[in-house]
């Protein structure tokens, strides 16, 4: 067990290094660097002055020295300056990380709240009308692109019916910390969370349904039934214990997917999170912010996948590959 965890963690390190190298090369390929940023307000700068600044920022050093400096700072949370906003990238990220994490967390919870009961119903009562409805819903959810679904929900529930706000993460007129503030936050979160959750349930429902169908004809279930265990308990005490465990482990994959997948939903609901910042920054050609965001998202996915792999190997020893 320990050996697997160690191996999996070690395997992550080259992935992180490779990711940072690729992003570093991309950053170099992006137009503009620290110098163009510094000279933005000063078009009269002479080539000698620019050269001096380049030297000062270390832009004439060999690439591996520049890379070392960049990654060393990034690890400590220093991603450089945003030249559009004239402030450290870290400051820009600060307020938005919370919003995106909140959105992803609630979306994940909502996915499980919807998918687990539906998956159990579909698996336990296969080929009933309830199962058929759930399978049809799955078809729709699988086929619908996120941005189309989010737009339709926004149009219907925010614009036509007016039940929910059309953008932002909270009503700015309300003081932070009050009950009204929490209510306003919840109202602003509801539609973005639903747009993400309702069409992301496919994997979980399908997994649960298939697994329960597989489990319910196994010998241990037959034994339980033969002993006279009531049907309800056969499910809660026997089948679901086996079927639900891996789902707990999928949480890691799910959340990392949601954090990077929030680009569409945050843009549509003008929800001030990381995804919206990414689109804004790249439209403004503010590449220090873009680089930081890609690096953070990539690292989050790599670490999240590793955690999920480890949890999965704990709950399901069969996948512990040597």
């Amino acid at each position, binding site marked *: 067990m320990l050996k697997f965890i160690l191996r999996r963690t070690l395997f992550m390190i080259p*992935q992180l290094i*490779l*990711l940072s190298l690729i992003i570093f090369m*991309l950053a170099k*390929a*992006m*137009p503009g660097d620290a110098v163009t940023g510094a000279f933005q307000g000063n078009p009269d700068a002479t080539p000698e002055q620019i050269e001096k600044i380049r030297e000062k920022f270390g832009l004439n050093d060999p690439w591996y020295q520049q890379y070392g400096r960049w990654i060393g700072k990034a690890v400590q949370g220093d991603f450089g300056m945003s030249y559009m906003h004239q402030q450290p990238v870290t400051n820009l990220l600060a307020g938005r990380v919370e919003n995106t994490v909140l959105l992803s967390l609630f979306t994940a919870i909502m996915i499980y709240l919807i998918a687990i009961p539906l998956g159990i119903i579909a698996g336990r009562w296969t080929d009933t009308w309830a199962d058929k409805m759930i399978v049809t819903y799955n*078809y*729709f959810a*699988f*086929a*619908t*692109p*996120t*941005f*189309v679904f989010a*737009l*339709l929900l*926004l*149009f219907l529930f925010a*614009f*036509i019916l007016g039940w929910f706000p*059309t*953008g932002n993460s909270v009503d700015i007129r309300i003081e932070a910390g009050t009950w009204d503030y929490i209510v306003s936050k919840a109202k602003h979160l509801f539609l973005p969370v639903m747009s993400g959750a309702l069409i992301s349930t496919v994997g979980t429902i399908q997994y649960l349904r298939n697994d329960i169908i597989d489990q319910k004809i196994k010998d241990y279930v037959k034994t339980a039934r033969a002993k006279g265990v009531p049907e309800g308990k056969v499910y809660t005490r026997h089948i679901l214990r086996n079927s639900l465990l891996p789902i707990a482990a999928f949480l890691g994959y799910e959340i990392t997917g949601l954090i*990077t*997948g929030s*680009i*569409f939903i945050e*843009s*549509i609901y003008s929800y001030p999170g990381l995804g919206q910042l*990414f*689109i804004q920054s*790249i*439209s403004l*050609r503010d590449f220090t912010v*873009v680089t930081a*965001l*890609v690096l953070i*998202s*990539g690292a989050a*996915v*790599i670490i999240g*996948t590793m955690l999920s792999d480890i949890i999965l190997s704990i709950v399901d020893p069969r996948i512990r590959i040597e």
Partner: protein
Amino acid sequence: MTNPVLDEKRLIAQEKLNNPSLMRTIWREIKHDKMALGSLILLTIIVLAAYISPLIIDPASLTRVNFLNVWKPPSAANWLGTDDGGRDVFGQLMVGTRNSLTIGFCVTIIAGIFGLTYGLISGFYGGAVDNIMMRILEFLMVLPSLMFIIVFVTIVPNYNVFTFILIMSAFYWFGKARLIRSRALAERELDYINASKTLGTPSWKIMFFEMFPNLSSLVIVNMTLSLAGNIGLETGLTFLGFGLPAGTPSLGTLISFARNPDIVKNKWWSWLPAALLILVMMLCINYVGQAVKRASDARQRLA
């Protein structure tokens, strides 16, 4: 005495009846599933309309700005009203559908070729080659693809439709490669591959002319389903403003009108039809895709 030649002919005919071609099985499966049949018919109508109507519509009328005719709601002259430049939305919808479909097809085929080649090589050689190629693939699969595509679209010089197709294809073959590889690994253990190796057939010939035909049903199923995904992705990227360059309208271009709150609510005719059309197309392709999937796996067939 029966004629031996005739007998052989009858045997071949019988054999064909017992092992119908994939296309025939797919058609039988679709005929049996009413939803799939309806989807196929609707999809055919959409595709025909998208490719034929741009030939009839005057292309100039879609680009000519007419300030006297701005934001007109749907009417007999403009079936779906007009946009901010007085251009006909219905005409743009048809041209956009055609462009989105064409790009979806191209990306599906190019990404399919990438994934197929990678998966076949990895699965055919196995061992150390497979090990290294799979580690690389695992790394590629955890990259935040959407962000990378957007970054590439922004920084690539001379950005045009072809570079866009290539960038998209470059990030959407990973899943296919893994799928093909797992089947190729099983296939390489079979006798016909060993026999062919013993006869000295070059490896590339075995991979593409002997192994590939046996995986073709898997490839067809996967390509049908990823076609829907690719159209969704292209329109999504264009919607965000990082897809098709201006001047090549896609369904996403029309939907991107909806980034303005006033237009979402009061000028719905500009973006809603495109959004619904994407939804309908995705559903149809998926229904047909599921039927194709069942046809390729005898255990799941309904017919």
